C-alpha cells in the first residue's frame, strides 16, 4: 500500500524519546500534580463518598471497583494530554518537528520516538497511581506485578490517535473536540464506574469495539486478582488497536513535513 508510513523504531527514534525525556525532567513536578488531581478526586469523592451508598459493584466494594478503572484512565489521559497539546506545539508553534526532519530523522522515526516516550509516561503515571491504590489498601493481588506490560502498550495505543489529531488540527481549539467527543465518552462508558453486563446488548457491543474498555478489564483483573481467559481477547484487541492506529500519525506527519 503506497503512501502508508509505519513508525520506525531505530537509534533515531530512541533519540527523539531522549529529547522528550530531557524536556519532561524540567516540568515533571507540575506535570505529576496536574495528572493526579482529577483521578484522585474521582477516587476519593466517588469511591469513598458515593461508595457509602453503593454497597457493591460486580461483587466488590465500589471503591475497589473503580480504583483500577481510574488507573487505566490516568494512563490514557497522561498520554493524551501530553501528545495532543505537546505535539501540536512541536508541529505548529515552535517548529521542533520541522527542525528534526532536516536532520537524518524521518517522520516515522519521530512518531516511533513519541510512542516510546508515551509508553514510558503511561507506565510512570500509572505506577504512581498504583502506589496510591496500594497505600489505600485497594490492591488485592500479586498479579498486579504484570501491570507494566498493559501500561506500556496503553501509552503507545493512545498516543497514536492523539498524535494524529495534533497533526490534523487546524487550531488549538480543535484538540478539545477530541477530548469531548472521544476521550470523555470513553471515560464514562468503558466500565470504569459500572460494569457493562447490565447494559442493552447493542450498546454493550458498541462499547466493546472501543479500546479503553479492554484496558480497564485487564488492569482490573490484575489488581483484583481474578484473571480469566477472556483477558486474551482484551489483550488481542488492545494490541490490534495499537498496531492499526500507529500508521495514522506516521503517515499524516510525513505528509505534513515533507509533502
Amino acid at each position, binding site marked *: 500500500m503506497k503512501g502508508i508510513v509505519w513508525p520506525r523504531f531505530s*537509534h533515531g527514534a530512541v533519540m527523539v524519546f531522549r529529547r522528550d525525556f*530531557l*524536556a519532561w525532567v524540567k516540568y515533571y513536578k507540575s506535570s505529576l500534580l496536574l495528572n493526579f488531581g482529577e483521578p484522585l478526586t474521582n477516587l476519593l469523592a466517588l469511591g469513598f463518598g458515593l461508595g457509602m451508598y453503593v454497597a457493591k459493584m460486580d461483587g466488590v466494594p465500589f471503591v475497589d471497583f473503580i480504583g483500577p478503572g481510574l488507573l487505566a484512565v490516568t494512563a490514557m489521559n497522561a498520554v493524551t494530554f501530553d501528545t495532543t497539546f505537546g505535539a501540536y506545539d512541536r508541529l505548529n508553534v515552535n517548529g521542533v518537528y520541522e*527542525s528534526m526532519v532536516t536532520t537524518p530523522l524521518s517522520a516515522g522515526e519521530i512518531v516511533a520516538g513519541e510512542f516510546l516516550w508515551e509508553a514510558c509516561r503511561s507506565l510512570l503515571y500509572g505506577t504512581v497511581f498504583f502506589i496510591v491504590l496500594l497505600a489505600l489498601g485497594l490492591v488485592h493481588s500479586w498479579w498486579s506485578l504484570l501491570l507494566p506490560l498493559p501500561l506500556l502498550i496503553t501509552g503507545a495505543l493512545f498516543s497514536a490517535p492523539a498524535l494524529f489529531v495534533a497533526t490534523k488540527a487546524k487550531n488549538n481549539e480543535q484538540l478539545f473536540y477530541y477530548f469531548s467527543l472521544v476521550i470523555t465518552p470513553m471515560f464514562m462508558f468503558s466500565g470504569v464506574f459500572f460494569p457493562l453486563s447490565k447494559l442493552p446488548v447493542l450498546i454493550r457491543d458498541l462499547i466493546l469495539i472501543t479500546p479503553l474498555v479492554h484496558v480497564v478489564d485487564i488492569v482490573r483483573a490484575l489488581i483484583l486478582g481474578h484473571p480469566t481467559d477472556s483477558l486474551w481477547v482484551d489483550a488481542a484487541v488492545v494490541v490490534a488497536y495499537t498496531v492499526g492506529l500507529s500508521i495514522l500519525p506516521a503517515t499524516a506527519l510525513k505528509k505534513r513535513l515533507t509533502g
Partner: protein
Amino acid sequence: MLHKTAITASDVVRVEGLVKRYGDFEAVHGVSFFVSEGECFGLLGPNGAGKSTTIRMICCLAAIDGGTIQVLELPAFPGNQAIKQQIGVVSQDDNLDPDLTVRENIEIQGRFYGQSAGEARERAQELLVWMQLESKAKAQVRDLSGGMRRRLVIARALMGKPRLLVLDEPTTGLDPQARQLVWAKVRELKSQGVTIFLTTHYMDEAERLCDRLVIMDQGGILEEGPPAEVIARVVGEECLELSGISEDQQVQLARHLGDADVTFSEWQGEIWAVFGSQLDRLLQRWQTLDSSLPRFYRRRASLEDVFLRLTGRDLRE
C-alpha cells in the same frame, strides 16, 4: 537558462530542469544551476520567487515534480537520509527547542546525526565556544537574545559536520553587530572547506559573501554569475543619481547619454538615476553645457540595483 556553464564532477549541488507544482500553479519551472565544492553560493529573489521551494527540494524535504537534483552525487528525494546525513540546515525561523537548554539543543542534534553521547558532547562544547555561547550553555533558549538564538541555530546546523551548509536568510532581524559576527563565521566555515548555500534579502550580504549567485523570479532564473560580473553585465559599474532636476533638464541631459557606456537610466521617485560604465565622460560632457549641473551623487553600482532592475520595483506580497 541564460548562461550555460560546464558542470563538473566536483559539484556539491547540481540542479537540472527542476520543476515544482502546487496544483495548477508551477512554483518552479525548469530551473538549472550548480554549486561547486567550497564556494559560497547565493540564491536570491523576491518573495514568492520559488527560492524556499527549491531549497526544500535540495534538502530532501519536498517532492520533485520534474528534472533532477543531485546533492553530493546522490539523487535528492524526500527523506533521503544519505544526503541529510551530510548537510546542515539553518531555516528561516528560529526553530530551537524551547523545552531544552542551549547545550541540550545542540547535543541532541548530534545524536540525531547518529553520534555517540561522548562525541556529541565534545562537538557541542567546541561549537558553543566557537559561537561565543559557552556562558549561556545552561540557559533556556527563551532567555537568549535574537543574535544568540541565531548563532545557536547555526551551531546546531553544524553539529552533523556537514559538507554542505544551507543558510536560509541567516541574518534577518539581526542587529549590525550580530550580522557581522554571522558573516565572520560564514567566511571562517568557507575557509575550512564547507560549501555554503545562502539565501538572503540583503543584497549587501550576498555581495560580500557569495562567490557566485543566481537571481530567481517567478519560478525561473534571471541571472547567474559572480556578483561583480552580474552587476557589470546588468547595470554597469557605477551609478549617477541626480536630484532636484526638472523633466526639461533631464531631457536635455539625456541627449548626451551616448557619450558614455550607459546601460540604462530611469526615474526613481524624484531622483533620475543613470547606470553604466565610464560615467566620468558623461559628467565632463554635461559640464560643458550652458546650464549648471544639478546636484548629483556618484556611486558604485550594487547588487541591489541589479535585483531591482531584474525583478522590478513593485512590492511583492
